[in-house]
């Protein structure tokens, strides 16, 4: 891993949980974009492939004080400490990598041989295993996106921040003689689809980008947000993820970190 320098990008997201309505468009957009197969029974979510999953959080209070919140969970693209994300260093076959130039945690399906160590390492369950051969109902294989390879049975897959879209955007910019991308040029499929505009995507290192303005990551504290309404999932584990969530509700912010368990359990 080479040294971090100023010109490096750090792509990340800000997901406004006050805006998110839990409609599920991000999940479908992701499946359609990334050739995620669908099985006849997808009700066991721990056997299901979902790069993006919307969780339903509850405040645990009785009717009618009960509240709910929806939390979309893509890969958190953890940076850990200097690119030491929980999953990358454990992969025995170098099938996943932390890219210092983009901050994206990649996954090479053809190199992965399915040991699933990374799944055990990831506390967010963003890494999922292809327990079955991917099968499309007759005719639906025509919907497959040629920019994303279809994964075979027996390997782990996860959200890539639609990396292929970055490549397409860069190719386009280069063809037009530009070296730098505009803020909106590279967007993930979920960001683009969200009808509530709850997801923002951009370069956290670029202070002009909305994500950086809202998330206000503090480089001295491994990217901890200076925005009082922002939090990251399981921040205290030191995973240093790049998905910032916004919520004006305190119980939601607490549920995102690990502290919630103490007072609630009594």
């Amino acid at each position, binding site marked *: *891993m*080479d040294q971090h320098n100023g010109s490096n990008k750090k792509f990340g997201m800000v997901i406004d949980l006050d805006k998110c309505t839990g409609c599920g468009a991000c999940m479908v957009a992701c499946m359609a974009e990334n050739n995620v197969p669908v099985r006849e029974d997808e009700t066991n979510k721990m056997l299901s492939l979902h790069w993006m999953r919307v969780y339903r959080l509850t405040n645990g209070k009785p009717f009618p004080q009960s509240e709910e919140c929806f939390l979309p969970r893509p890969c958190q693209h953890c940076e850990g400490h200097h690119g030491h994300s929980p999953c990358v260093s454990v992969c025995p076959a*170098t099938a996943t*990598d932390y890219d210092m130039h983009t901050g994206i945690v990649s996954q090479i399906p053809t190199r992965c041989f399915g040991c699933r160590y990374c799944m055990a390492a990831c506390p967010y369950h963003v890494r999922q295993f292809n327990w079955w051969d991917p099968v499309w109902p007759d005719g639906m294989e025509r919907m497959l996106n040629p920019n994303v390879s279809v994964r075979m049975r027996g390997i782990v897959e996860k959200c890539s921040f639609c990396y292929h879209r970055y490549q397409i955007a860069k190719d386009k910019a280069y063809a037009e003689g530009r070296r730098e991308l505009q803020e909106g040029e590279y967007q993930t499929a979920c960001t683009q689809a969200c009808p509530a505009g709850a997801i923002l995507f951009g370069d956290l290192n670029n202070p002009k980008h909305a994500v950086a303005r809202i998330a206000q990551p503090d480089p001295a504290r491994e990217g901890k947000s200076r925005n009082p309404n922002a939090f990251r999932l399981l921040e205290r584990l030191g995973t240093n993820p790049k998905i910032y969530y916004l919520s004006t509700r305190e119980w939601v912010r607490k549920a995102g970190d690990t502290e919630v368990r103490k007072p609630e359990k009594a």
Partner: protein
Amino acid sequence: MFPFSFEWVWDMGHIVFHGGLWYALSILGMGMTYCIIKAVYDTVKSKDGGHGSGHH
């Protein structure tokens, strides 16, 4: 594993890991080579010495 992999970057880990690995492998390899060569030598010598069988 090998420096010709496209994502290769050198670091301390490689030196420690490969140092230990090849140290162990060479001991095993050299030990076994010694045993086999010595056994061949012993076999030939014992035949020259006129022993018909290896049974002591």
